[in-house]
């Protein structure tokens, strides 16, 4: 997943990085094909070059050697709302058919079955980033037809187009999972299967999705991680397996 996500990033882009796999993917991209990728964390570190895998998005290693450290008012007002973020990288407990993400509650808000952490910066990243990549493991509970709570809006907010609600960013363009890649269908705003990992069947993917998943007419193959990608992930970026094990 981390290697596939890394390949989605282009050199020189400005990416708003979340913790966990997105963070690993961004640092892998920087170590391979995108050395000039600008990593920006909501904590205020801009152009971070962490010498160790940050354990959180507020890790001191993000500060040392970065291009800029700014306050969080600047992060959200002068950078994100200003339209400077090209890619937002989000994960979540639930992702639905239209790429809505829930990181707030499972069950009703007033009496949740599971209380999750909440938005953090995810709501506004999903609204403002020019495009959003979602990273999540497939599973029927993780990919319901409709999320219990819309923390980060997807492609048909309240049944409407994003531009009708004046949302500046394009929203989720891809969902990178552990079995394949879903892509947004332009006509319907629905997430459809676009690519399968080696050795994975279409029914494997369907078993992990809570709606009747449509497929592109031709599925693209996904190249397995290269030896270099694996070596970097396992030996250099996450030697303790902090995020790779998840």
């Amino acid at each position: 997943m981390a290697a596939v996500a890394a390949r989605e990033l282009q050199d020189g882009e400005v990416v708003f990085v979340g913790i966990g796999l997105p963070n690993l993917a961004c640092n892998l991209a920087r170590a391979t094909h995108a050395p000039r990728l600008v990593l920006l964390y909501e904590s205020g570190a801009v152009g971070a070059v962490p010498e160790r895998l940050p354990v959180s998005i507020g890790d001191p290693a993000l500060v040392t050697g970065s291009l800029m450290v700014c306050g969080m008012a600047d992060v959200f007002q002068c950078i994100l709302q200003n339209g400077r973020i090209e890619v937002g990288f989000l994960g979540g407990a639930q992702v639905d058919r239209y790429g809505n993400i829930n990181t707030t509650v499972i069950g009703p808000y007033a009496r949740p079955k599971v209380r999750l952490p909440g938005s953090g910066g995810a709501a506004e990243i999903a609204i403002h980033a020019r495009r959003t990549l979602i990273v999540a493991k497939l599973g029927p509970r993780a990919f319901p037809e409709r999320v219990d709570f819309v923390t980060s809006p997807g492609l048909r907010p309240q049944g409407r187009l994003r531009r009708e609600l004046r949302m500046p960013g394009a929203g989720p363009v891809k969902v990178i999972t552990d079995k394949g890649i879903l892509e947004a269908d332009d006509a319907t705003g629905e997430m459809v299967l676009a690519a399968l990992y080696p050795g994975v069947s279409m029914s494997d993917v369907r078993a992990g999705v809570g709606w009747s998943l449509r497929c592109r007419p031709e599925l693209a193959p996904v190249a397995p991680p290269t030896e270099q990608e694996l070596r970097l992930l396992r030996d250099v970026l996450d030697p303790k397996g902090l995020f790779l094990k998840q």
Partner: protein
Amino acid sequence: MRDAVARFVHDGDTVVIEGFTHLICFAAGHEIIRQRRRDLTLARLTPDLIYDQMIGAGCARKLVFSWAGNPGVGSLHAFRRAVEAPGTAPLEIEEYSHFGMVARFSAGAARLPFWPLRDYMGTDLPRVNPRISSVTCPYTGEDLATVPALNPDVTIVHAQRADADGNTQIWGLVGVQREAAFASERVIVVVEELVDERLIRSDPNRTAIPGMIVDAVVVEPWGAHPSYAQGYYDRDNDFYVAWEDISRSPDRLTRYLDEFVYGVPDRAAYLEKQPHVARLKAKERWCAGVNYGY
């Protein structure tokens, strides 16, 4: 610290202990727990372990926040218990996103009633928080989201250094401490080091909070542990991981508070019970100086 909390933190206050992962003043949180403050409205972007401890200790009536997790680890279980089973420990919540909380402090600091932002369209947050509202721009006609100003009764900021008047310098991640301090009625600054005014004056661009808005300066080395202070000590991540297990059980949480909060008179005694913190001491990475001459 004892005097500052006794004098400036009262039952029923809205209390902000800010710091985004960095410079979270656990020393102040522990003192508030020890002095058994009650009915507090605790506000912070990321409640973190310190508010989980204060919720577990019964200090909080309400929590205002935007991301309530254990950063890089998992959950805040005292918070989750209070929200998932409201019968046991009622806790009112008022929830925003980070941008919303930042905007609330910005409005508070500027003494405006609200702050506009292009946010929340398509999300369920305004549905569960009626204080997230909207306004029509008088210039463009655009509908913009609004959040109300947050003006805490007291804000506590941990920093690397300040002089005796409270001119406070922070480096590394600066979060929303500046806005929170300016928004607040009272400000307590807690520092790793008290320095001479001449040192502050030698590098005025680094001053985040001017002494004119500061009510008390407390010197408390390692006062942010298990959080960190850039240039002084790293985060004690082992404790953040351990909190997952401690906070999961009300009994273990109570035992933790008994031993490390109620069981010690002050921060110095707390530190004596942390024999391994020396390993967290920061390595040296000095910046080049700048010329302020003219």
